[in-house]
């Protein structure tokens, strides 16, 4: 039952996000647009490029979608509303999201095209930049909760959300999550102006539809993770818990979407340099500060 509810919530959020995305790009609020766009993808030819690596080409969009859903499986909407309340939830989400890289490299390699391939490899470089900034802030979150269970992590934020308790961790995680979702300004693997779509470049029709759905789902999953780890999950007055989870998730997702609109794409070298020379020391500092707080503050 939980499975169905979470899945519906996920789809609903993706739909809302797509509506907002359409609104920011075209200036018109059209609730039916995402559905129509999905139907239109069904109607278009789904071309297989010449001499592809068929397995990679076909698997990549589906894998990306599965990864995003798997990640969402351990994120609670309400105290009991979670598909799998794993003892290692915070670790599991890392493990699931590691496959985003695999999916993108497959999508890059599969179609046998230069733009796609460069896009795929670029994401590998990007991983080296953001990966530590996903793991290290989560470490600090788990330290405060003294647990890797996601529901316990939300519980630990009762009264004081992590965004206040460890703002540094929030900022780092938020940025790294955007890089992981390869949204602008971190859209190096797709980079329309540089790679003509990159890993997206050779997909058409249904496959492109799945890929786009997967990308939006990934954004929702990461926004939901941000909510669970930093924004107090379901905590909030008046409204039922699930509603707070959804509202916060959507707010984070929309802010990820909007940030990209007002920023130019980051330089690959800058991303790497800043993440390593600035991000990792800050993440360590965050861990130390949180550690001290956990020890000192009763």
């Amino acid at each position, binding site marked *: 039952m939980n499975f169905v509810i979470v899945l519906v919530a996920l789809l609903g959020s993706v739909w809302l996000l797509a509506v907002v995305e359409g609104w920011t790009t075209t200036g018109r609020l059209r609730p039916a647009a995402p559905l129509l766009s999905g139907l239109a993808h069904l109607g278009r030819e789904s071309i297989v490029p010449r001499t592809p690596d068929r397995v990679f080409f076909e698997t990549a969009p589906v894998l990306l979608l599965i990864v995003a859903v798997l990640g969402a499986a351990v994120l609670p909407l309400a105290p009991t509303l979670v598909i799998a309340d794993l003892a290692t939830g915070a670790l599991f989400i890392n493990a699931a999201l590691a496959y985003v890289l695999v999916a993108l490299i497959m999508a890059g390699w599969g179609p046998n095209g230069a733009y796609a391939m460069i896009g795929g490899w670029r994401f590998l470089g990007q991983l080296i930049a953001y990966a530590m900034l996903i793991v290290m802030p989560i470490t600090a979150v788990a330290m405060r909760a003294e647990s890797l269970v996601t529901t316990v992590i939300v519980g630990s934020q009762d009264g004081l959300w992590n965004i206040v308790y460890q703002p540094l961790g929030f900022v780092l995680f938020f940025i790294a999550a955007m890089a992981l979702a390869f949204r602008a300004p971190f859209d190096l693997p797709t980079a329309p102006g540089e790679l003509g779509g990159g890993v997206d470049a050779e997909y058409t029709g249904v496959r492109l539809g799945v890929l786009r759905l997967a990308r939006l789902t990934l954004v929702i999953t990461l926004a939901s993770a941000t909510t669970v780890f930093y924004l107090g999950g379901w905590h909030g007055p008046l409204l039922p818990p699930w509603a707070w989870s959804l509202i916060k998730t959507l707010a984070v997702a929309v802010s990820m979407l909007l940030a990209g609109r007002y*920023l*130019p*794409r980051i330089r690959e070298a800058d991303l790497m340099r800043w993440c390593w020379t600035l991000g990792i020391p800050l993440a360590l500092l965050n861990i130390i500060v949180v550690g001290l707080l956990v020890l000192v503050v009763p």
Partner: protein
Amino acid sequence: MTSDPTMTITGARQRQERFTVLQKWVSRALAGNLSCLIVPGPEVALSHGLDVTAAGMRITATPRDASVLLIIGELSEKMNEAVAVLYAQMPRPRAIVNLGGQTPSTLPDADFSAGVSQAGLIDAVDWLKRALAKGAFSDSPEDFDAPVLHARIEYVCPMHPEVVQNEPGSCPKCGMDLVAREAGEPAPEHDHGHDHREHRHHEHEHQHHDHAQQHEHHEHEHHHGHCHDHHDSHEHDHEQHEGHQHSHENHHDHGHKHQHGESDGDAEEKGSGHDHSGHHHSGHGHDSHEHGGHDHVGHGHSGHDHSGHDHGGHDHGGHDHGGHDHGASGFMSMIEVTKDLPRSADGLAMDWMEVPFGPVFPGLPGGLKLTLTLDGDGVTEGQATSLVGMINESEEGKEIGAETFIERLASAMPLASVSYRLLACLAIERAAGLENDSATDQARAVALECERIASHLGWLAQTGRQLGFAWLTDRAATLQLEIRRASGKRLLELTPALHALAARLGRTPLLKSRLKGIGILPSGTGGLSGPVARAADDAGDAWARLWQRLDEIITSLDYIKATGEPGLPVLRNIGRGSGTGEATVETPRGEAQLSLILEHGQVKSYRLDTACSHHIGLVAKLVEGRELGDALVAVGSLDLSPWEVIS
């Protein structure tokens, strides 16, 4: 205006019986989701005052994502070929809309044609919506095929390059089996020479080794050729690369004939074409794509079609034949595979591949083709060419009326038509011996400054597209359209908006780090003019060029404020004057110079020199050794207008 009574678009998709009900809905969805690829590019649409988004179409970055091919204006011969390749890449159902020009000969007739105007565009969208709702699917969709999608294969002896014949066989001199290659492609030997020169790390033995290997592989290929070659043994797809990688997919164009309806009626790109990919001969084989893993076997030979991973040009390139050549048993060792490859700037040995960017590429102005040799994400060398540039024709005895000449020059430069109109007027009037008239000069100067503002805004929009900075693209494009439509007074009302834009860009995070230090020209680079030259006094990088252009926008505004209303340059009465005239105009991109000979009111010969013709030569220096993203930013910061590249 064409209107098809049956409302079936030429690029309709094969109807599938099973889904008749669904197709009705899908058709409606398609009609509501028009996405267009603009040829030559969105900047040309803007400079014509077309607002494609407002008309109801989404502008896409790639042909794969487009359902409408929107062609604006007349295209050159080379562009026609590129457009055919792009069209072939678009998934069906697809339509062609043509505004203000002839449909390229390489394409089927346009589904809708109109003049270059917003009204024409809106009509086109209306028509497309109706046509797609009714005729997106057809029982008998038309094939699309164009000569550019094919190449002739010829057979050459690996040891005796002078032995070339149209059929496979053996060399009369040494008896070796001949090797297939695309006609018109440089011989492999030449390439090796080139490689050798460029990358000292190559050892001679290695090359020999490679030759031997190629030979073997080709033998293998021949067999394939004979087996599968039931269609057209000498006609193969020809990797064209314009704009996109695997350009050409006859595949779906022969599509329905060969569709073996694998499950969902996918269009399969027939495996032909990839030249070196060993299996070109299996072009119509049913499982050509299945050969995936083995395909690359023969790639070594094929000089310059480095599509995809096949990096032909730098034949030794490895991941593909790595598996075959080296680690025959099991895992391929990257050390083994890359040990003989040239080292790039960062010390890593990688495959080199030559990748085309353009002539229709979201990050570059339409008509500009940038060919970069990439090793990984780094550019080792690059070169830009214009596919739409004007040609200085001064043939004897070919006279053009003065008015016609002006129109022709103005329409040949869609990104700066006012400047070139002015240039032609000035040169002709001087040739005819007319004195300057200060009132006219002033109005013309204001018109020129208006165009400068619009042009710089167009560049900002283009930069926004390149950098994925959607806000900048939208904002600059909106302002550009407003300025084009505005009179002098309304123009001044836009002043705060333009100041705000500049201020906003100054505050935008990441922008400075993206542009600073990129695209610096070696000191003492000659032949610069326009904003590029003026920014060279400053830091001379992309960031300085951005601010130079923003400053010029403000300066031009001040000038307009102080001077008055713009007046489009119109030729004054020159009678049947004769003489020689020369004029120089500071166009938005730099100085343009025109000298011409006028005889009895007819332009007898002319010579045009523009800033872009010189600037395009700087590209090679700017991109070398840069990361791909930086290289593109550097090229973009020059604000090249391929139209203004004179050959």
